[in-house]
């Protein structure tokens, strides 16, 4: 989220697309109802199903899953065609006026530089034209044919309301009504907020779905303002935190990146991370990269990280592929290239696509360790549960450890919500049996591994034995100790260069924020963006002052939000080029002639002149990108691509299947089904009564939504002679499930490219453990392919067939 849940009350228009907040985040959705009740805000829901969010919407428009980009580019075109653009904002704060290199082009659904064999682009032409002064060439009049604005207009020209209807199946008049409502928010005094979640990410072009809406929000001037923004609802309580802290194959805490093997030394690694400004006078905040990186290495390896050894740069593993994401992990497992696997509070057997493949993969492991407070299907993947898990234990040689952990009620620490709030919580219950804290388990494993290396020696012991593990009780580091490490501290006194008698930073003190971090090894910081969470002022994550001056919804004294307790990202963009708020009634920051003042912590130097320094300081341009240069693998602009399994061919580029650069492993391409064999467009989702695979263990929730079902329209039910409440079989090229049928008016067939497309909805909460009835999950059916940029599996759009059956004899 660029903004926060409580800020949503400041909006004039909520667009829920690619999400279902009422169902998945009801208490956050409250702020939508508050905006409606108190500001007269309107709610638009665009979704293949008439969801619980739609039930309280002012406008609902159906859309075929996997066609959001066509819809959104259509809206952008509508806004531009009808001059519904926040011009001052677009001109000042985006790269609309920048000139793109000669030779860039787009045609037949492909950008320049496509290599079909590699399924990848040579992205060299997706770049700005750099002038002799080393800065990007711009044309503020937006006349230049190769300026971003004109390229954009050219790129979206095909997305007329007719084309949108043809691709998305959204009736033209509904699309136009939505586009009109959205376009009204181009007024500087009207804001729109975008609420999205996995309905956008779980596609082979998920990143572009989101980026497309971000572009729309930029030309409407809705980024950085109260009641605006791009708000990722996020699924799990600390998914944000785990990502911030970089628990991913290619990440280092704070969105730094793990070196690749093309970066053999510290200096080579840093050389590509200079980030010098691309426009005059810009901050280009990543210029501080080295400070954050060195402080991280000091936090990891302490005294062992020295300037001489490049701060133990060699200890870090170097990647040979972009990332070992979960899909690659299970691909390797399936190929017998992995021996051990840990699942910490994670249930992959139900979470990743193509369950058959997952079971086969897990069966090839030598050993598997699961850590969970609850039973999981993964920890019992080897156990036979009839049709629900049809395996033969005697044929599975995996050694499985099931380690019992505490749950939220029994541990202490902080969680980061989707609004980037780090909130501390306290333990209040005695753990059952011998269950233990996850941190205890990790510490115990580490100490034992370390002891083995110290005793026996072995390959590359240094990173392990030199890991900085100086805790009061090494066997059980306390939450406070770990939190302080994340915040960072001073390792050696830092003296004032002008007056060596003055100590600027005193050894042993917590750093106040990342602003004082250093690249000389005198500071350590586990996660620079969290710096400030636990400084000398104490544990700021535990702050509980819920006062909110002038009811802005900022709650700036509540807990801690990264970075440096900033509540709204890019908040400088809430004011115009002279620093005056776009909407005085929704003031966030204001330039008082010498400094920025207001309700939030400015995300720009307090003295940075408004007409000089752009708001988007993380970009070397200082502006936001309508054209992303080479940053994304599948194009500098979003373009419509069908899902890999689509009921119709790509209307714009019939030859292209799916996202042309999405990674597909050998053997998986053959496992994609086509519309002839599997005529119905399926999608998967959550229900409000359940949370993933956890609440099927919870008696109350199990009773509120007891049994696995699929949802279909009355028309399809009639065609297939399926009775509501009756049993059906649903199958794809990869698997088959049995479910109850819920026949509903909330799903209606769509007409796409002249063809009737029926939608099959498949919720995901059932398995073979817990209190609820045993059932299946959609991952028995879904294809093994992910987003081209971040490899999130394509759960939201795939093909199935369906038939009525006689119920299983229970």
């Amino acid at each position, binding site marked *: 989220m660029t903004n926060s849940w409580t800020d949503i009350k400041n909006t004039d228009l909520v667009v829920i697309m690619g999400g279902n907040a009422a169902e998945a985040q009801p208490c956050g959705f409250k702020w939508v109802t508050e905006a409606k009740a108190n500001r007269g805000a309107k709610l638009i829901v665009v979704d293949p199903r008439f969801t619980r969010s739609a039930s309280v919407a002012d406008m609902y428009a159906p859309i075929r899953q996997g066609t959001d980009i066509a819809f959104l580019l259509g809206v952008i075109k509508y806004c531009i065609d009808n001059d519904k653009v926040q011009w001052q904002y677009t001109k000042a704060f985006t790269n609309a006026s920048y000139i793109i290199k000669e030779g860039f082009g787009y045609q037949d659904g492909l950008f320049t530089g496509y290599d079909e064999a590699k399924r990848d682009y040579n992205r060299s032409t997706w770049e700005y034209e750099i002038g002799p002064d080393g800065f990007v060439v711009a044309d503020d009049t937006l006349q230049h044919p190769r300026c971003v604005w004109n390229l954009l207009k050219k790129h979206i020209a095909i997305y007329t309301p007719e084309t949108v209807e043809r691709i998305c199946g959204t009736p033209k008049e509904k699309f136009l009504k939505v586009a009109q409502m959205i376009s009204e928010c181009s007024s500087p005094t009207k804001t729109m907020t975008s609420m999205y979640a996995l309905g956008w990410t779980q596609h082979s072009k998920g990143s572009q779905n989101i980026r497309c809406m971000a572009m729309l929000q930029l030309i409407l001037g809705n980024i950085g303002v109260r009641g605006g923004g791009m708000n990722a609802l996020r699924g799990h309580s600390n998914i944000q935190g785990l990502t911030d802290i970089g628990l991913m194959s290619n990440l280092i805490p704070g969105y730094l990146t793990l070196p690749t*093997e093309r970066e053999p030394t510290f200096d080579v690694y840093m050389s590509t991370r200079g980030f010098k400004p691309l426009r005059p006078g810009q901050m280009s905040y990543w210029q501080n990269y080295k400070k954050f990186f060195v402080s991280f290495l000091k936090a990891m390896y302490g005294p062992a990280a020295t300037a001489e050894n490049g701060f133990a740069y060699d200890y870090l593993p170097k990647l040979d592929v972009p990332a070992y994401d979960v899909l690659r992990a299970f691909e390797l497992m399936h190929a017998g290239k992995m021996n051990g696997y840990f699942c910490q509070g994670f249930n992959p057997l139900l979470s990743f696509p193509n369950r058959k493949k997952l079971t086969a993969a897990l069966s090839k492991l030598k050993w598997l360790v699961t850590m969970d407070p*609850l039973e999981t299907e993964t920890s019992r993947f080897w156990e036979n549960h009839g049709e629900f898990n049809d395996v033969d234990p005697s044929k599975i040689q995996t050694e499985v450890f099931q380690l019992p952990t505490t749950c939220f009620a029994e541990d202490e620490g902080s969680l980061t919500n989707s609004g980037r709030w780090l909130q501390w919580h306290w333990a209040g219950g005695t753990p059952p049996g011998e269950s233990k804290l996850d941190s205890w388990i990790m510490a115990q*494993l580490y100490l034992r*591994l370390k002891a083995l290396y110290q005793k026996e020696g072995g390959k590359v012991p240094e990173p392990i034995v030199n890991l900085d593990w100086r805790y009061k009780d090494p066997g059980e580091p306390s939450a406070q100790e770990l939190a302080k490490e994340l915040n960072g501290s001073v390792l050696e006194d830092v003296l004032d260069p002008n007056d060596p008698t003055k100590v600027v930073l005193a050894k042993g003190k917590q750093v106040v924020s990342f602003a004082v971090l250093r690249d000389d090894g005198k500071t350590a910081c586990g996660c620079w963006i969290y710096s400030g969470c636990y400084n000398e002022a104490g544990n700021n994550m535990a702050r509980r002052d819920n006062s909110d001056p002038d009811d802005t919804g900022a709650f700036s004294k509540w807990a801690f939000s990264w970075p440096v307790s900033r509540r709204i990202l890019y908040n400088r963009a809430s004011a115009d080029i002279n620093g005056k708020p776009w909407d005085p009634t929704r003031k966030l920051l204001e330039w008082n002639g010498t400094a920025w003042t207001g309700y939030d912590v400015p995300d720009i130097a307090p003295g940075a002149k408004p007409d000089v320094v752009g708001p988007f300081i993380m970009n070397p341009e200082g502006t936001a990108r309508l054209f992303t240069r080479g940053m994304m693998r599948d194009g500098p602009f979003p373009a419509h691509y069908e899902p890999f399994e689509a009921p119709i061919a790509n209307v714009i580029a019939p030859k292209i299947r799916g996202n042309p650069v999405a990674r597909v492993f050998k053997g998986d391409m053959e496992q994609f089904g086509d519309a002839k064999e599997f005529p119905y467009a399926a999608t998967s989702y959550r229900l409000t009564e359940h949370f993933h695979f956890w609440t099927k263990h919870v008696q109350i929730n199990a009773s509120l939504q007891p049994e696995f079902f699929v949802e279909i329209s009355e028309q399809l039910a009639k065609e297939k002679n399926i009775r509501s409440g009756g049993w059906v079989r649903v199958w794809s090229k990869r698997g088959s499930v049995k479910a109850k049928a819920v026949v509903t008016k909330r799903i209606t067939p769509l007409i796409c490219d002249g063809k009737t497309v029926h939608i099959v909805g498949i919720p995901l909460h059932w398995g073979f453990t817990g209190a609820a009835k045993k059932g299946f999950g959609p991952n028995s059916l879904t294809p093994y392919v992910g987003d081209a940029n971040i490899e999130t599996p394509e759960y939201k759009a795939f093909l199935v067939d369906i038939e009525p059956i006689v119920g299983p004899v229970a």
Partner: protein
Amino acid sequence: MNMELSRRTFLKGASAGLAGTTIGALGFGEAETAYAAAIRPFKLAGTTETRNTCTYCSVACGIIMYSKGNLAKGEKADIIHIEGDVDHPTNRGTLCPKGAALLDYVHAETRLKYPMVRKPGSDKFERVSWDYALDRIARLMKDDRDRNIVEKNNDGVTVNRWTTTGFLAASATTNETAWATYKVVRSAGMVVFDNQARV
């Protein structure tokens, strides 16, 4: 913990909203002592309150756990009720159907209590001690790492990459646990490393 502060600020912030609603209506004046036979005795009287955050989605609703026994005082604490925290800016005391049933998560029949191991080819879990489990796992890790870690790639670049053992991180553990996990996993050279954000 932090109860007083929050209570104060809560009253400061919220009393205006409350004045003349339920409390006002029921007019706390001469409170009557005996419960009416009709009315269930108030079950939270004398319980210990602990503030926590809902473990489910990223709205991160504030919750209060009510327990018999006080963990902070080293007593055995049995949680008997969980309710939304009205002091919390986001949820304002409300909870969704999952959050409102958190109590049944804490006390779920399928909560795990003891370390278990399933031997190759076996059709059942067997209870083991923590020491057995942890020593065994550490051993398996070391053997696999020593056998398979890639120290240098073909170009002789030091890569210290361990790809034959992987780690999937949780989505509901604390940032502090996440950091401890990161340190352990990365220092071992593991790159097959991911979390729930992927899906």
